[in-house]
């Protein structure tokens, strides 16, 4: 598997920490899935911060702070700087939201923030679209990882633009790519890996399942399945049938 800014992850699965019914259920989901990265955020101190901080450190996974909810480059940059100090990592999942309904990335604010943060030594994981031109600009700015969306955050629709994602993957074969947002079922995750992506990041589909720990495990198996499939050289699809059982030696009855 490609590395992420020099880090080789044990599993191609990144998991959010939000929307779980309880911290215990969240921990169970990390254990059952073997997710190797946990996304976290910064919010106003209300007393619960220390306990959450202790807990996520206890997960023994890489922490990936996000800039969720930031609608401008400036907000995202300041949030990233605060996160680097708080979480002690220069990894940042950079979200610059362009629209409240779709939570889609703002290509302009995203590029601006990416250029500033890369110059400031951050290792940026940009939450982006499948736009290939935007991708090339982010790579020029210093990104070694891209996180294109599959569908709007929390929608569970899966991969809305398979052709666009395939084109993006093919355009930058050497860049690590993570499908982030919109996955709803394990088959979506397997499909993403079959398209050649390097990992997935998900949260809602696991946290909102009736049994998050089991669903987390299901996604973990699906991404591994998709990765193995890509590695094992799939058959070519055919438009006609071909008998699997040999016809030769068939009896005349």
């Amino acid at each position, binding site marked *: 598997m490609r590395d992420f800014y020099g880090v080789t992850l044990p599993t191609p699965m990144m998991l*959010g*920490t*939000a*929307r*779980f019914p309880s911290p215990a259920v*969240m921990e169970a989901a990390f254990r059952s899935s073997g997710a190797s990265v946990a*996304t*976290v*955020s*910064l*919010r*106003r*101190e*209300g007393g*619960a*911060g*220390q306990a*959450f*901080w202790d807990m*996520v450190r206890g997960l023994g996974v890489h922490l990936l*702070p*996000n800039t*969720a909810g930031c609608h401008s480059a*400036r*907000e995202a940059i*300041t949030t990233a*700087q*605060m*996160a680097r*100090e*708080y*979480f002690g990592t220069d990894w940042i999942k950079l979200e610059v939201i362009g629209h409240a309904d779709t939570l889609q990335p703002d290509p302009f604010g995203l590029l601006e923030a990416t250029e500033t943060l890369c110059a400031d030594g951050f290792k940026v994981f940009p939450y982006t679209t499948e736009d290939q031109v935007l991708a090339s600009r982010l790579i020029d700015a210093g990104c070694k990882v891209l996180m294109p969306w599959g569908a709007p*955050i929390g929608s569970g629709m899966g991969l809305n633009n398979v052709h666009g994602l395939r084109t993006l993957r093919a355009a930058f074969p050497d860049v690590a790519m993570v499908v982030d947002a919109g996955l709803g079922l394990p088959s979506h995750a397997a499909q993403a890996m079959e398209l050649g992506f390097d990992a997935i990041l998900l*949260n*809602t589909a696991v946290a909102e399942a009736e049994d998050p720990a089991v669903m987390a495990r299901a996604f973990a198996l699906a991404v591994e399945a998709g990765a193995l499939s890509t590695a094992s050289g799939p058959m070519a699809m055919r438009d006609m049938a071909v008998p699997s059982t040999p016809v030769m030696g068939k009896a005349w009855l």
Partner: protein
Amino acid sequence: MKIEVNGETRELAATHLAQALAELGWGEARVATALNGSFVPAAARDATELSPGDRLEVLTAMQGG
């Protein structure tokens, strides 16, 4: 002086950010700070003066997706 802390107006005796955090009960807490929209590293809190009406954000870890 009056400054805005995490969106609420507070009357503080402190003149510098580090004192303010102590006065607010966050002297020991693991937090990240921003003043008027700009990040203030922990090391700079002692030297950071406050002015009336300043907007202080004191953040901590939270769930995220």
